[in-house]
């Protein structure tokens, strides 16, 4: 029976009546939008006069941190000669192999499946056994991501160090001593580090490594610390999707904020903190 609804297969075949296609569409837009922005931002580190768009005073965009700008980079074709190239592989690899993102893009990009109980193109399917077997490397990206939490937190700390001599024409901090201050950008960067921490520490691979890989009893009896850690990671893991999406958007926004300040479109509010501490700040940033 050709019209038997039960045996029909193929893309989009379903009896679901709700707008199931909204979800893949939403993620296509979201991920598509973010990828476009991130690529554009990464490839445009400099303004027309060579001024930096990736920093503004003490602020450094997370897409360019840790900042390296070796000479050989500039031997590459102009389009690729961006310091972001040396950075972005890590978060991209981490997120690209993250269990949550895998779910999201298998569904919305590969339509495998486009929705639950919705038919898909019945092409050859091998799941994560052939091509996608590389996803198993995820935990190594996690190790790298762990370092990134420290780097980005340190960036947020450095974003408290304001140059007394103001901001130079290239948008970097001018030479000279520093003083403690806090700006909206500092908060944006701190929040970025926090969100990234929440996302990274809720990683499934981490959950496995801290305790999940053990058969529990031994965790409780022999590894009280790992048990507590496992519980903590599990708590974060329950909201891994939320952490993943919000932290991703916030990375984009942090870059955007700094870029806007650097372009002079937005004005960053900041105030001096603890004037009495400035002498320390002086010592701290003095060598710069």
């Amino acid at each position, binding site marked *: *029976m050709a019209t*038997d*609804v*039960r*045996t029909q*297969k193929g893309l989009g075949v*379903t*009896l*679901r*009546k709700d707008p199931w296609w909204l979800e893949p569409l939403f993620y296509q837009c979201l991920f598509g939008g973010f990828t476009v922005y991130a690529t554009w931002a990464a490839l445009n580190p400099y303004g027309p006069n060579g001024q930096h768009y990736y920093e503004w005073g003490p602020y450094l965009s997370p897409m360019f941190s840790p900042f390296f700008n070796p000479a050989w980079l500039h031997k590459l074709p102009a389009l690729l000669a961006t310091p972001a190239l040396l950075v972005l592989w890590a978060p991209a690899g981490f997120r690209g192999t993250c*269990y949550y993102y*895998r*779910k999201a893009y*298998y*569904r919305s990009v590969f339509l*495998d*499946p486009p929705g*639950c*109980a919705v*038919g*898909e193109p*019945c092409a050859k*399917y*091998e*799941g*994560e*056994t052939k091509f*996608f*077997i590389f996803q*198993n*490397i995820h*935990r190594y990206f996690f190790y790298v991501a762990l370092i990134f939490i420290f780097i980005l937190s340190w960036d947020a700390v450095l974003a408290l160090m304001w140059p007394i001599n103001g901001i130079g024409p290239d948008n970097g901090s001018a030479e000279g001593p520093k003083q403690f201050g806090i700006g909206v950008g500092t908060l944006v960067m701190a929040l970025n580090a926090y969100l990234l921490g929440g996302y990274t520490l809720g990683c*499934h*691979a981490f*959950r*496995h490594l801290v305790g*999940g*890989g053990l*058969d*529990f*009893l*031994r*965790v*409780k009896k022999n590894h009280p610390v790992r*048990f507590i850690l496992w519980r903590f990671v599990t708590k974060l*893991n*329950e909201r*891994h999707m939320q952490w993943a999406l919000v932290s991703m958007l916030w990375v984009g926004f942090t870059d955007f904020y700094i870029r806007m300040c650097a372009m002079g479109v937005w004005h960053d509010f900041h105030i001096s903190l603890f004037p009495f501490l400035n002498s320390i700040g002086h010592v701290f940033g003095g060598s710069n």
Partner: protein
Amino acid sequence: MGKVHLRVYRGNSEGGQLRDYEVEAEEGMVVLDVIHKIQATQSSDLACRWNCKAGKCGSCSAEINGKPRLMCMTRMNEFKEGEVITVMPMKTFPLMKDLATDVSWNYEVNKKIPPFTPVEGAVWQWEQEDADRVQEFRKCIECFLCQDTCHVLRDHDKMTKFAGPRFFVRTASLEMHPLDALDRTELLKQEHGIGLCNITKCCTEVCPESIHITDNAIIPLKERVVDKYYDPLRILWNKILGK
């Protein structure tokens, strides 16, 4: 209370079609009640499975308006008045008749999982916190809705290569049992094809027992497979330790 309109699949292994039924509604009805009423008053040979009518046995699985669900836990007042509600048998399994499908494949898979085997000299004292993780998996009522919805089985028919979410849950309940002595990682990777799962979580979405199938069973098991087969440092480390 007016009438409700159901469109039920009638057929057998050779094929079938949807048939329309109109039934007098009563307060608080679930879809299974309507099916029973159809049996009692219109088609006494309409085949469907059920036992408990309280979401505890996992017999009455079907696809209601395209969504895999338990008929006994789907209330009629969820639907708009006058809406035509489609009730289909589970798609992934061969049809026996009407709403009853042949789920025997699942029982075959289960047999391949080595049963619980206690460690030698086990002391049967362990903490609730340890039990919690395993108990989540043991809530499974074997409704097979997750199997039905999983695209690896539903669209790609990998019955011979893939055990399906239900049996990852089962394996997890054994693998994570603190007093179990066996290691089923190889089975998971090879015969049960856990690599075929692309963690798209449809199983979790349909599970009537709200078991976090993907997050708590499949992914942790995948990580155990990584430990054993894909993580070079880990493999080296285990070699050094002589494990």
